[in-house]
Structure formats: structure tokens, C-alpha cells
């Protein structure tokens, strides 16, 4: 089965992901792709606490995400992929990971970033990554819960 949802959300597995997306999608695997969390199992464990009953949660590094074993794991489940930033999915796609769409679900306020939507704050580097994803055929609309409308987080001429 293809990936049901790939989402960039700096809150990772939380209410909106579990209840808003995970339930209607009947997700059975929540896979966080993050080198940082993979290197910090104690912190990773905290984020996996929110995995709902009946589903499995894992944290993998970028290298692991590119391996055939991960691909097989994802394909055999109803999978949700989660990233904390735009750099990670871009790294995956640049190395051949097949991703058709990336839901921009939450990139919250940080120094130097400007509000695009209440849940999306971007800087010039983020916009560049969105352009690079688009150039590789990855749609990346912004949408928080599925009931809300999609938005283009980085329209042309939208500034830096």
C-alpha cells in the first residue's frame, strides 16, 4: 500500500495527527524520519508515547528510511510518515525516495521565520526547499487537519 500521508509537522505525533488524520486514514504505522530523534532514543520514546492504540510507531534515520527494509515495512502497513522539517523529506527525495505529496501541517514560529498561515512560518531557506520539492514533482500543500482547506504555503511572489 502506498504511503497514506507524508507530513512535515514539528509537533510530530500529536492530537491533530492522531485524531484528525490517523483515524480517518486508519493508520497502522506512524514512522518519524529524523536523524536527530534517532540519535536520542529517550526523546524519541517521548514522541512515540502519542502513538494510538492499534498502531505502531517507529523512529528511523534518513539512511534507514532509504533502505529496502523500511520501504517494505511502510508498504505493508497503512503508513503515515512524519518529518520535523522540510530538509529531511527533500534529502530523501534527492536520493530517490518516492514521494508524491507532502502535507505541510505544522512549521511553527521560530526566530527569523515569517507567518504564512497560523501554523506555517517560513524563512527563505524553507521556501527554497519547497521550490526544490516542487521541482522534483512533490506537491506540498499546507493543511492542518484534513477538514480544512489546502493552501499553497509558498506562492510565487510571496516574498522571503
Amino acid at each position, binding site marked *: 500500500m502506498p504511503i497514506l500521508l507524508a507530513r512535515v509537522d*514539528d*509537533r*510530530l*505525533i*500529536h*492530537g491533530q495527527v*492522531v485524531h484528525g488524520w490517523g483515524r480517518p486514514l486508519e493508520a497502522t504505522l506512524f514512522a518519524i524520519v529524523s536523524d536527530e530523534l534517532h540519535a536520542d532514543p529517550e*526523546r524519541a520514546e*517521548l*514522541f512515540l*508515547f*502519542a*502513538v*494510538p492504540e492499534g498502531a505502531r510507531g517507529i523512529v528511523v534515520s534518513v539512511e534507514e528510511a532509504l533502505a529496502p527494509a523500511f520501504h517494505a515495512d511502510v508498504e505493508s502497513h497503512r503508513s503515515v510518515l512524519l518529518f520535523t522539517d522540510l530538509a529531511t523529506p527533500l534529502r530523501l527525495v534527492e536520493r530517490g525516495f518516492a514521494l508524491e505529496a507532502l502535507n505541510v501541517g*505544522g*512549521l*511553527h*514560529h*521560530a526566530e527569523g521565520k515569517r507567518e504564512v498561515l*497560523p*501554523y506555517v512560518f517560513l524563512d527563505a531557506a524553507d521556501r527554497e526547499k519547497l521550490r526544490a520539492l516542487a521541482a522534483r514533482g512533490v506537491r506540498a500543500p499546507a493543511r492542518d487537519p484534513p477538514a480544512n482547506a489546502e493552501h499553497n504555503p509558498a506562492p510565487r511572489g510571496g516574498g522571503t
Partner: protein
Amino acid sequence: MDDLRPAAVLVTHGVLGTELVRTVERILGPQTDVAVVSNDGLSADGLVAALEASLDSLVPGQAAVVFSDLAAGSCGLAARRAGASGRVVRRITGANLPMLLEFFHYRGTIPLDDLLPRMETKGRAGIVSS
């Protein structure tokens, strides 16, 4: 034991915490030593930082109870991750009005170790289906 009265810090989605405190105050009267942190616009790390800043702003050494709404959500997670700022910090999830009323009514009159299970009992007892 009023000088040992623990503070409350609510970490919740949107304005839920603010409204819960407002409702408690309508019932019990104005409260002090209470802070609210909303997850609005904050990343996971940003929410932890905001919660820690809120705990840091309390009277040094004062115990605190961190109430969160959804255990398996950004707020519950932040409550688990936040450092204790050198004070006793207890945590409880699933914050609701019966639980909060129990806390605000009895804090400072019974030890925190006894109050926490009472709050949990009251919170659960307030859920009745028919």
C-alpha cells in the same frame, strides 16, 4: 499550610486553559498562583520552552501541578518533557473542571501527594454516560 500552596500551570490547546481557569474563578472566586500556556503557534520545542518559562516565573521552590488536556498530544508531551526548574512538579493529564475544582479548593490544605489521587478520582467521576 498556606505558604506551601502549590501553583497550577495549565498547558492546553488554544484557549481551553484560559477558559477553564475563568470558569473555576466563576465558581470559586479569583485565584492566584495559576498560569496558562497555550500551544497556539508553537512547535513542540517551543511549547516546552514556554512551559518551562512559566514554571521559572513561579515563586522559587514553590511546588506546581502541570495540567494538560490531551495526554497523547502536544500539550501532554510538553508536560512530560519540561524540566522541573528546581521545584516539585507533578503532572496530570485529561484536565477537566471537576479535577480543577478539587485542586483549587483543597490546595494548601492537604499534601500534594494526597491531593493528586483525589484530583484523578474527581476527574474520572465527572465522566458519566447514560
